[in-house]
């Protein structure tokens, strides 16, 4: 798919883009050229400025300096609508959907088709249905409210919305962040159809394999500066990482400690289930990292929230450190020594307008108020260990980049010294460097005898970090594989017979 296509003249050219927030410059004169029919990869660490650059192209931010040219004509966008009219559509990193409105209403928002003065609702539905079919999502009913859609389906609506704009340029900011590996192939097909129509795609992702699968050209940003732009064919993963990080990463995953011994079972489930998962049996021992693999919607998040008491199990037994325990609320879970690092950092993991320190002490204060003093003393050091980059402990976490936010989430939980840590997509949306940091924390915790249960959609991560891998499908655990398995083995198990054909 990455086959070289003849290069056209650039559709969109950005040069010398400078953008600052609150006196901090996050883009220092960045340039970019997009050509018709190409998929242009934009990569860089967390906080490198990828999303910011995209938002400038989309008219959501106005740059402090720099120029945009469309077909050689200078343009400037005061609002997203101007950018859209000019043919630049954007799929943002965060979903931009109205959950209480239908798919059709979302797709046509801001440009509802009219007949006379009134909105032509029938045409809206018909066109949306046709659009969904054209990108291969015929299973979706255009009249459904978005609230009822799964994350992957919502992503499809986002893309449909961009396509419907008849855009010449579509930017996608980590469109696969919420997708499981096999679902990405649908996106590949959609992107292929789009490029065939001569649409230029700006593609931001932290998944390097996707970058190489899809992109013809790759631009690397680092700390808001333009490192360079290369044809994809000239780069390999290792070289790309070196350009992103500025140095070579010896390995993507920290080494497993030699000859580490597993301890007592810390978390045991038997026949556990609730409305979303059923018949769950598993054991996680002290010092062990158990991976949970599965497709989107397999029920991994539900399993973790069942253990943690957010959606308590209604049947089966749970034993913590050998003692039978019934966890009915997150509070009980925390008291019992559990920690849950959720997949939705902003929505469920952080108090965005509170400071780093307030967040870091959040769990302690809520559950063990008596230990607040000690935790506050320890906080600066703990955050330093996690290599948090922030202006101060009183900085609001909403201004941190994704990776640093994740470090604050970790700090929140480490402050209560949990014995069992549940991790849900621990590295979603964070860059290679920060990922490595998270992995190191996991290894260190395991070495200290903590039991870790990690759900992840990134197979390399599951394979690279886990001591054992449990595979889920349709709310049940369907098997266990060793970390030495191949990605294909895991996928086959996760997708069942159906997906084997696809794989």
């Amino acid at each position: 798919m990455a086959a070289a296509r003849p290069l056209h003249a650039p559709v969109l050219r950005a040069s010398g883009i400078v953008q600052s927030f609150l006196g901090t410059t996050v883009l220092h004169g960045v340039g970019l050229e997009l050509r018709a029919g190409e998929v242009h990869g934009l990569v860089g660490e967390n906080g490198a400025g990828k999303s910011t650059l995209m938002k400038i192209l989309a008219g959501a931010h106005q740059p402090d300096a720099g120029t945009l040219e469309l077909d050689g004509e200078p343009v400037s966008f005061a609002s997203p609508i101007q950018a859209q009219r000019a043919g630049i559509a954007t799929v943002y990193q965060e979903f931009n959907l109205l959950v209480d409105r239908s798919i059709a209403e979302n797709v046509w928002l801001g440009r509802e088709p009219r007949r006379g003065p009134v909105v032509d609702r029938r045409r809206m539905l018909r066109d949306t249905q046709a659009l969904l079919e054209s990108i291969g999502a015929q299973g979706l009913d255009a009249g459904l409210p978005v609230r009822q859609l799964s994350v992957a389906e919502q992503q499809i609506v986002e893309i449909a919305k961009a396509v419907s704009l008849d855009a010449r340029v579509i930017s996608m900011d980590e469109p696969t962040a919420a997708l499981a590996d096999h679902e990405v192939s649908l996106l590949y097909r959609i992107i292929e159809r789009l490029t065939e129509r001569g649409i230029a795609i700006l593609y931001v992702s932290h998944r390097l394999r996707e970058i190489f699968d899809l992109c013809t050209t790759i631009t690397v940003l680092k700390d808001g500066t333009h490192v360079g732009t290369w044809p994809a064919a000239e780069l390999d993963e290792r070289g790309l990482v070196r350009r992103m990080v500025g140095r070579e990463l010896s390995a993507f995953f920290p080494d497993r400690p030699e000859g580490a011994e597993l301890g007592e079972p810390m978390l045991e489930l038997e026949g556990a289930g609730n409305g979303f998962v059923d018949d769950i049996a598993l054991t996680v021992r002290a010092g062990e990292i158990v991976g949970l693999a599965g497709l989107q919607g397999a029920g991994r998040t539900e399993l973790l929230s069942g253990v943690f008491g957010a959606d308590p199990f209604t049947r089966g037994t749970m034993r913590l450190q050998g003692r039978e325990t019934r966890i009915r609320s997150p509070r009980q879970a925390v008291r019992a020594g559990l920690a849950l690092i959720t997949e939705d950092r902003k929505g469920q993991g952080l108090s965005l307008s509170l400071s780093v320190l307030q967040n870091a002490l959040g769990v302690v204060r809520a559950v063990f108020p008596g230990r607040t003093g000690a935790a506050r003393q320890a906080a600066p050091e703990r955050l330093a260990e996690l290599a948090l980059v922030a202006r101060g402990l009183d900085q609001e976490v909403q201004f941190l980049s994704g990776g640093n936010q994740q470090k604050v989430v970790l700090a929140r939980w480490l402050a209560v010294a949990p014995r069992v840590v549940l991790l849900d997509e621990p590295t979603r949306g964070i860059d290679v460097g920060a990922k490595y940091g998270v992995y190191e924390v996991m290894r260190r915790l395991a070495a200290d005898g903590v039991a870790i249960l990690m759900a992840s959609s990134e197979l390399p991560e599951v394979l690279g970090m886990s001591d054992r891998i449990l595979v889920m499908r349709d709310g049940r655990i369907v098997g266990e594989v060793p970390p030495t398995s191949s990605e294909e083995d895991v996928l086959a198990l996760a997708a069942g017979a159906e997906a084997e054909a696809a794989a």
Partner: protein
Amino acid sequence: MTAVAVQPSLGRRFVAGLGTPSGAVFLLLVALLVAVVVANPNFADPNQLVRFLARTAPIAIAAIGQFFVIVSGEFDLSMGAVIATQVVIAGNVIGQDEAMILPGIALMLLVGVVVGVVNGLLTTVAKVPSFIVTLGMMLALYGFVRFLTGGAATGNPVDSFREIGRGLLLDTIPYPVIMLIVVGAAAWALMRAPYGQTLLAVGDNPVTARLSGTRTVVVKTSAFVLSALAATVAGILLVGYAGVHPSIGQGYEFQAITAVVLGGAVLGGGRGWVLSAAAGAISLELLFTLLNIAGIDATWRPTVQGAIIIAAVALGGVAWRAARKPSAPAAAARAEDPDPAPPSKTTTPPITTTTGEQ
């Protein structure tokens, strides 16, 4: 190697704090005080000042109570009705019987707790918006109390009880002032304690708070209880200060919300200083006093109050957005800033991101 900067000095934090809407209200307070004293030099007499403070204590205490609810992301419109209820209880239950003072106060506190718990549980468990819950509670309380008493309270309670709102400690400091100081100090301590911080976290993001082991139901409900208890204390002071009357407390809920907002707290929760709420309440009273001295017809008072709260909130927002603009020339270059961020959810000084090495 950490890249976390050390905490700035206390002095710098103080100055920075005055720049936030919650800090600015103290500047407003001082400015109004100066204006009042200039207009009426008698006011500078410590005796006068302390009496003025005594008079504003009930609304300031009510504002402190309202603050807890607002910072947790809710509203309490039932405050005025709680005050009215407590006033009627004071008149009917305590009456002229000294022996009933303690049982009476106990009953009032109990009623406060019950109202708070009902408000809180309906909001958190039944998931009814607090605006509606407390509106319903307001109607129900006003109606119920008047129904029970036929609209008339028996009369003023015994003087020794009314001393709480009327008397002076050592013939110098009115009890309401002491009460305000005690409540203010307790509220300040509470907001610094884990409870207060958890309350802020619940106001900011209830999902995160719940998943962190917070009993959001308990925490939010207790905010409503604190609010109802503050209203109870305000009621005790008011019945002491002014006696029993069905109109006491009417409009206190909006007055208190105004004070809290003037104190820089953000409707929707997660942000604000508790003492600023009290400062907001006192500022508002100072403003009315100033209008009075200036001989402006009392009928214009709502107009001034309305203009003030709009201006205060708008300026708070503008000040904050101005702080976010990078620098003067760059800001001028894009006068029209369609900033997507919600109006005033944020109030901190600028940040700079330093780069860490791995």
